[in-house]
Structures are given as C-alpha cells and as structure tokens.
C-alpha cells in the first residue's frame, strides 16, 4: 500500500509545484466536464420539468427509458457519437472528432438522462399543494415551476453534482471521441488510463486524487452558492 501514500505525496507535489502539464490537463478537464454538465442541465431540467408537470400517455414508459439510460456504457456513447461525427458520419463536416467540442457533445449525452431522471425525481418530491399554492397566488405556469424548483433545490443540486461527477470521471467518451491527444484533448481520466497502461501506477493514483480534490472544491462551491 506504499504506492497509495507515495501517490498522495505525488499528488500534493504536482499541485504545489503547479506542474504545468498537470495544470493544463486539469483546466481542460474542468472546462469540458463543467460545460457538458451545464449544457446537459440546461436541456435536462426543462425536459425533466416538462415530463414531470404534463400528464400524457406513455409518461411512465419515458421515465423507464430515461432510467434505463443510466446504464448507458460510455463506450457505447463513444461509439455512437463517433459514428455521428466521424468524417463519413452525418455530422462529419463539423469536424468534431478528436476535439474538445466532440468530447463535450459525448459527455452531454452521457449525463443528460441522469440529470433528467433526477430532475423528475426531485420535482416529484415537492407536494402538488405547493404548485396549487403558487398558481393561486398568481404565478404563471413557468413561475410555478420555478417555485417548485426552488423548493426542490437540494435534490436538484444533488442531480447536478451527480451529473458533474459522471462527466468528470468518465473515460470512454473522452478516449474514443477525444483521442487523448496531448495538449489538446487529454484530460485527467485519459491521462490516468495512459499512465496506468505505462505502468505508472503512482502517477495515475496521484492524478485520481487531484481529480477528487477538484470535485470536492466544485461541490463545496455549489453548496455555498445554493445556501445563499
């Protein structure tokens, strides 16, 4: 287990010395996973809200499908997005393959069902009576939804944190769509994979620790923002 202790010191070393390559990878990781989470949230929260608030046939089925997509393997998303944006694919002329943009697209798709599903769950935790009350007090449909979201803010925050966690920790999409290109699409998880396959276990663990530290800071930040 010495490796773990060494890895810990290595992580600290990389952080305090502001190792330029680690910094660069870390910033890119943050940029990609935060962007994906934000885009996914911008889609998922309204969609989840729509599904929660409307009554329609097949609602249960849609929820089941969304929940099924929690099981979407990153490799599968990677492959599907690859087929979509590769040179021959329908979106080939956007030239997104092996770019951060493509990674964002893939991670957004990965995170979308999770945030949607948990938005629905968060909203169903709020009693119908709150909706009635807000409408009654003159809220538009949209305002009442905002009110309900506000009542459900803890749970929604949980969904966001979960989505972010999924995005920042995944490696399948980043590898397949990003290609792990040094200086361009390399992120923490793909670096970890690479270093692991090179046999650099300690460095890999150190990078993992750095990733978790970042995630912790992001969570603390989110919590702080929503307490206000």
């Amino acid at each position, binding site marked *: 287990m010495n490796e773990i202790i060494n890895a810990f010191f290595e992580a600290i070393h990389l952080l305090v010395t502001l190792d330029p390559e680690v910094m660069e990878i870390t910033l890119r990781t943050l940029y990609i996973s935060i962007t994906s989470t934000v885009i996914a949230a911008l889609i998922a929260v309204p969609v989840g809200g729509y599904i929660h608030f409307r009554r329609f046939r097949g609602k249960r089925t849609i929820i089941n499908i969304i929940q099924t997509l929690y099981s979407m393997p990153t490799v599968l998303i990677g492959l599907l997005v690859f087929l979509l944006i590769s040179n021959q694919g329908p979106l080939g002329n956007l030239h997104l393959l092996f770019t951060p943009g493509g990674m964002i697209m893939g991670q957004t798709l990965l995170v979308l069902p999770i945030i949607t599903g948990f938005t629905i769950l968060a909203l169903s935790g709020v009693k119908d009576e709150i909706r009635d009350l807000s409408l009654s007090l*003159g809220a538009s449909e949209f305002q009442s939804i905002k009110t309900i979201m506000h009542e459900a803010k803890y749970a929604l925050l949980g969904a966001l944190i979960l989505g972010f966690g999924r995005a920042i920790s995944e490696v399948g999409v980043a590898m397949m769509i990003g290609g792990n290109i040094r200086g361009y699409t390399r992120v923490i998880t793909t670096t970890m994979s690479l270093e692991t396959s090179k046999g650099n276990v300690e460095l890999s663990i150190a990078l993992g620790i750095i990733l978790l530290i970042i995630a912790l800071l992001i969570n603390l930040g989110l919590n702080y923002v929503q307490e206000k």
Partner: protein
Amino acid sequence: MNLLEIQNLSKEYDGKKVLEDINLYLKKGSTLGLIGPTGCGKTTLLRIIDLIETPSSGKIIFNGLEIPKNKKDQMDIRRKMGMVYQKPIVFKGTVYDNICYGLKIRGENKEEYQDKIKDLLESLGLEGYETRDASTLSGGETQRMALARALITAPELLLLDEPTANLDPQSTEKIEKFLEQLRETGKTTVIIATHNLIQGQHLSDEIAILNKKIFQIGEPEEVFRKPKNRFVAEFVGVKNVKKGISSKVEDNLTVINTGNIKVYATSTLEGDVYLSIRPEEITLSRSEVRTSALNEFNGEIKEIRDSGGILDLKIDVGEVFSIYMTQKSFADMELTIGSNVWLQFKASAVNIFEV
C-alpha cells in the same frame, strides 16, 4: 353587476360526484358564505373557482367573460383572485418571503409595499414575525400568514377556505373584524367556505348551504328562519325538527300528527311534512296557562346543557323539544332535571317544509 357566475357546474372524482349542478351568482363587492358539513365539496368548489381544478362540466363566468381555455388568460384572471387554503402550506423561507411571493411573481417592487406588509402583519397579530422561518409557525399563525399572503396583492375576489378553523375566539374575532372592514370598502368580493354557521352568517350578504348540491341560497336571515328543506333545517341548527302528517283544519291552519302529539301550524301544506319550532319561540311555565298559543304540552325536563351562559333544556312531551333559557330565569323558576313543566308555542311559530 355580477363578478362571478357559475352555471350547471359539476365535478366528479373517479366517477363519484362531489359537486352537482352548482349555480351561483355573485355581485361585485358582496360576500358569499359557503356553508356545509365536512366533505360536502366546499374546498373543491373554491379550487374550481380559483381555476386550479377543472370542473367535469358547467360554465364559470368571471367579470362577464367565460373562463378561457388558455393557461395564460386563466392566469390573468387568477391574478385577480386570492385564495387562502384550508391546509397550512408554506413556501420554504421566512414569513416575509411567503408574504411577498405574490408581489415577486407579479414583478412588483417589494420596497413599495413595506408599509402595507407591516400593516397587514400588525392587523393579523403577527407583528415582528417577518424573519421567522415560516415552517415553524403554529397552526393559527400559519393561517393568519396565509391570509396576509393572499391579501397583499389586493385581490378582487377573495376565496377563503375555513379561514379561522385553527383560531381561538379572540383571533377569530380579529379576522372577522378585518373581513368586515374589507366588506365595507365594497372593493373586495369574498367567498368564505366554513362549517361555522355563525361565522357564515355574520360575515356574508348571502349564504349557500352546500352538500354536493346547493340546497338553499339566500340572505342569512332567510336561510336561518325559513330553511327550505330538512337538510338545511338540520344543518343550520334548527332544533326541534319532527316528521308528521299534516291535514287541513281551516284556511291556512293545519294540524300535524307526529304519531305522539298533534301540533297546530299556520300552513296550507298537507301530507307528509317536517315541522320545526325555533327553541326561542317556545315558552315554558311550571303550571298550565291559558294563552292564545294553540299548542300547549305537558312534559318533563330530561337534560340540561350549558352552552356558554345560555342553557339548552331538553323537554319530553311525547316528542323531545329543545328550548333555550338564561341561567337566571332557570334559577328563578327553581327548575331541575325531572321537573314537570308546560310548553307553549303559537301555530304561526311552527315552520313547515316538504319531506
């Protein structure tokens, strides 16, 4: 002009009718008391009027216009109403946040309302509660806060669902005073659902007795004095309701045989009927007296109940009658359970209605 009209409105839940053929016309500035026993549909009707619930059939006309289907237009109408729910629901946040909700939603500048909020809280006995976490309020405090929350936007139509159910008499009186003032300004039209008859009577220009259907609607006086049917009679607390068979004696005078006693009444109704006599119409004496009253019966005091200073006596003269009496007369006449007494009431005091 009618602010609100409801025509042939019905509501079903899972095939079970809870409101049936409701018709209501509500003048601008008037107050309607919606009175009925628990589960009679009061809350449901208010929710339908507030456009929160959709009726199964029927029409609602607000300010001369039928309620539009469009959500946005419905909201515009709803913004002219305010509703206080029976269940104490609060938004997360402070009392102040809760009260300002309607303002925020309407994009009003909260700052301009500081005085109004203060006044409202004060007149509802909640001064200084602004920063309290709303979820920690007591039952009655929540109810008063809910009232302030609905009133801050000065609604044209105010819907109140049991607004004083959780309040003590003092607070109730305060709220009633408050509502009476509101009524006097003539600006706010109010529907107040309550199971409290006295309250309904005090606060309303008209009352509707509801039990799935509207059984009677009219001025309180009229509904109380002349219940149209047994349900209303029993509900408005007309005591002494008896069933019997009425037969004509002369023009405008019938005798009703209850099976146990015969009661004279000024009425033309024949056949199966209900009769009622208001307790305060009955006089009581220790010995037989010859009066102009056509009805006189001898019996025995069975029960004595103290209802806040006034005594309620049950006297069995073949049928059991309730009569009211002050503590003082009771003492003066040296009555007690088992005392033999005589009851007298006029034929014209007897109220007759169809079965």
